[in-house]
């Protein structure tokens, strides 16, 4: 482990926490534009967080310690996940500790905790949200893993760094398997981050909501942490997508000169990804909750197909 690596790791840790709300703001802004609204500006998520942190927390009478503890777990879990994805450089000292499977595990851990917290108060919304979240989770999680497996099969490794290194430095070859995987990944990402067509982050309509239903009882700093964690999660997913499907421009190991360029590439890619996400969301309609399993099932099948295609075509 080199000092530069350590430095890089710390830098990325700080970076992901700080730019996550920005990304969210950007997506929202793009969406507003696409919907012919002027939008609240890309910095609105920061303002929200500041506002929430200043409020007094209100806790339900029968909230247990688990309820209060969960936002912290959620936040640090997501932070860890985002910090592990090689976004600007592949020389991350922490990355051997967690490979793609463990990454999925961390997401699952966060999901289980937020669901449990949602059930803690015992209101109708909380449990309903938890149930739906777990429903989405148990279908999305395998799909995500299969996407990862396809990439792993190509690179013969489950380590994210190795995957990225392999994919970033290959010749530009069209992998049909990766194409399938990419579609599946996007579908999973939409579901996992509570975006349209699975969930709508902007409404509190009881018939459809998932994520918002779970965090209904949170307020003030707890809510701030949860929201922030969601933003980091979105960032993490998008960076994973970038790492898997568009890793070009990433900095090589201990190559500090390449860093500015990599950073620029990252921001560019994030901007494009955020805009496309907004576009995607605007173009599609919210699904009925009973259609969600079909949607996710499709994603899962696509991911499995990706893997099969890989074995069939050897690519």
């Amino acid at each position, binding site marked *: 482990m080199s000092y530069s690596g350590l430095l890089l790791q710390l830098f990325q840790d700080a970076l992901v926490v700080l730019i996550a709300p920005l990304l969210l703001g950007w997506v929202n802004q793009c969406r507003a534009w696409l919907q012919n609204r002027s939008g609240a500006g890309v910095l609105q998520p920061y303002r929200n967080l500041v506002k929430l*942190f200043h409020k007094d927390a209100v806790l*339900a009478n029968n909230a*247990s310690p688990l309820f209060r503890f969960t936002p912290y777990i959620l936040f640090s879990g997501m932070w*860890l996940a985002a910090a592990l994805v090689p976004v600007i450089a592949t020389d991350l000292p922490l990355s051997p*500790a967690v490979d793609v499977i463990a990454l999925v595990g961390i997401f699952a851990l966060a999901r289980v905790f937020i669901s449990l917290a949602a059930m803690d108060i*015992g209101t*109708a919304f909380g449990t309903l949200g938890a149930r739906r979240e777990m429903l989405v989770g148990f279908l999305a999680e395998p799909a995500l893993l*299969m996407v990862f497996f396809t990439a792993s099969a190509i690179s013969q490794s489950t380590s994210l760094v190795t995957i990225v290194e392999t994919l970033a430095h290959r010749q530009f070859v069209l992998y049909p398997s990766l194409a399938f995987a990419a579609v599946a990944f996007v579908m999973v990402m939409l579901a996992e981050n509570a975006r349209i067509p699975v969930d709508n982050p902007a409404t509190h309509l009881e018939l459809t909501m998932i994520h918002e239903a779970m965090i209904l009882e949170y307020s003030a700093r707890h809510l701030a942490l949860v929201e922030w964690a969601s933003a980091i999660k979105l960032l993490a997913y998008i960076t994973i997508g970038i790492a898997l499907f568009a890793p070009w421009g990433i900095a090589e190991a201990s190559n500090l000169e390449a860093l500015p360029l990599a950073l620029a590439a990252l921001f560019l890619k994030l901007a494009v990804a955020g805009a496309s996400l907004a576009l995607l969301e605007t173009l599609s309609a919210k699904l009925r909750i009973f259609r969600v*399993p079909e949607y996710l099932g499709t994603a899962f099948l696509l991911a499995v197909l990706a893997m099969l295609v890989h074995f069939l075509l050897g690519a």
Partner: protein
Amino acid sequence: MSAILPLDLVSAVVVIWLALAVLGLVAQASPRFVTNFIFPLGACASLVLLAAAFSALGGTPDIAVLPLGLPDLPFHLRLDALSAFFLLLLGAASFGISLYSAGYFRTMDKGTLGLLCFEYHLFLASMVLVMLADDAYMFMVAWETMAISSYFLVTTDHKIPEIRSAGFIYLLVAHVGAIAILMCFGVLQGGHGDYTFATMRNAHLTEFWASITFFLALFGFGAKAGMLPLHVWLPEAHPAAPSPVSAMMSGIMLKTAIYGILRVSFDLLDMQLWWWGVLTMSLGLLTALYGVLFAAVQTDMKRLLAYSSIENIGIILVGIGLTLVFHAFHKDALAALAITATLYHALNHAFMKGLLFLGTGSVLHATGERNLGKLGGLIHSMPKLALLVLVGALALAGLPPLNGFVSEWLLLQAFLLSPGLPLPYLNMLVPVAAAALVLAAALAGYVMVKFYGVIFLGQPREKRIEKAHDIGIWEQLGLGWLALGCLLLGIFPVFVIFNIDHVTRTLVGQTLGSTPAQTGWLLLTPIHPERASYSPLILFAIVVIGVLFTIFVVKKFYHGRLRRGPAWDCGFPEQTARMQDTAEGFGQPIRQIFKQFFGVIREVPSPFDKKPHYHGETRDLLWDWGYLPIARLAETLSRLAGKLQHGRIPIYLLYSFVTLLALLVFVR
């Protein structure tokens, strides 16, 4: 006098347990003595067993012969790495369970307690003997003693007809399985009544007979393990038994079946065919999916856990199947990886399922309620239990950094590395299998959220549950031990695998590619650091640091003002705790999606009912498709056999006459 061998220690533990069993029967007049003395002493014996097994892991096999058993076939004992590993599992899990039992059985009435103590320790001793047996006869004796003693444990509360029928089904399946195992040994034996495993190891069978042996073993041991379609006894028997017994059956006894499969297929048989592996893997996958789906729709907490045990056995079987495939193609490094994952998962499951079953025991004890629809909010009245069970639930859900994740991670690694098998179809099958496995694992998370959330979170659905008392010191010790195990097994996998390697070496002739000496104790790298690595300790540390850091920052920079208020009532003020979402509701999406797999019986009230009544039941379709037709067939046949006993002398004479004539014709 040479040093004390591990085998001597293990045998001493058996003797102690048997003595305690008898002591419990003798001392049944004094329940306090039984709970405060015998059970803790039994737990101490478990610790000795743990230590002995641990020291035996790396050593050469110890052999002993007891002057008991059949003539020409005294009881042969052998303690090798495989048995040591399972003994370790037994010792570790039973230590916690016995400690817990010391507290749990306090309230039991006198006569029952003495008997229970007897059966409990006999059960433990017989399981040790199963692992030690080195000849078929002793194995079977120990095996069936285990079945009988556990049967009587299951039927402790025999006044309830359901419990009786649960016990009956259990023993029936166990017995049929045992006959199959017996037949399997029949093929393996050398003829002339030589039933020692040593002879069987040297026997050479043709492919056909080896396959027969394997199937018989898979059938026989699968019946005990709860493999599909022989799983039906499991969700009946586990809930029926007192919770420590359920914990022991699920945590330890099922593993004896795994031990048996491993012993026969890797030790006694001298060949492994790849399609055995495919078969085992397919059955394992079916079992896992089936188990987890049914777990998701259960409303009885112990049944839920029982189905979850089925799922985990499925995962273990997948591991065994994969090992067989690899081993058959001489990919020993991969086989080592798969078998390591399998053994690891078996060990993990003993801890997690033991913990959870004991947890349900405490819930049952405190509330008298098993139905998830009536529990809730126990985290307030039983905070200690809630914390300990949370560990178990997270572990069983397969979440990092706990132990369940490690073994699933290893197994997935094995799947990912499988390409390169010489058969293309197999290569295609593997990703599909991996997908199914991942699906099962993800569903396990669903199940655990339901399990934990409905029991411990929310508001108590019944008034009396609010006054539930928390667990006592014995229970805390027992549960704490198991929870600690879940955590330690989760964050020190390298150490665990280092020890499992001894077993791996004896089974598949190779160990994992890297040793701790090469990569350090921190990083788990099954093949090569480039390919995959995982360090739960670092992960755990980062999460803990992250949490602490966040808390610190939040505390530091922002005020901590907090006030309590009622939860939002959705604008409907007459809400009661009974209106919370139920366990059945939680399982509803699963039932909806996989409705073909369930036999759902529902009575839904119409909007105009004066006294609305809702009843929902999810049936195991295998009962209707598999078992009931068999039962009906047996019934028909027995009616035919009954026709023979017609009651009329001339008819009877005619049988005799016809038999005679037929034989005379035959002789001609």
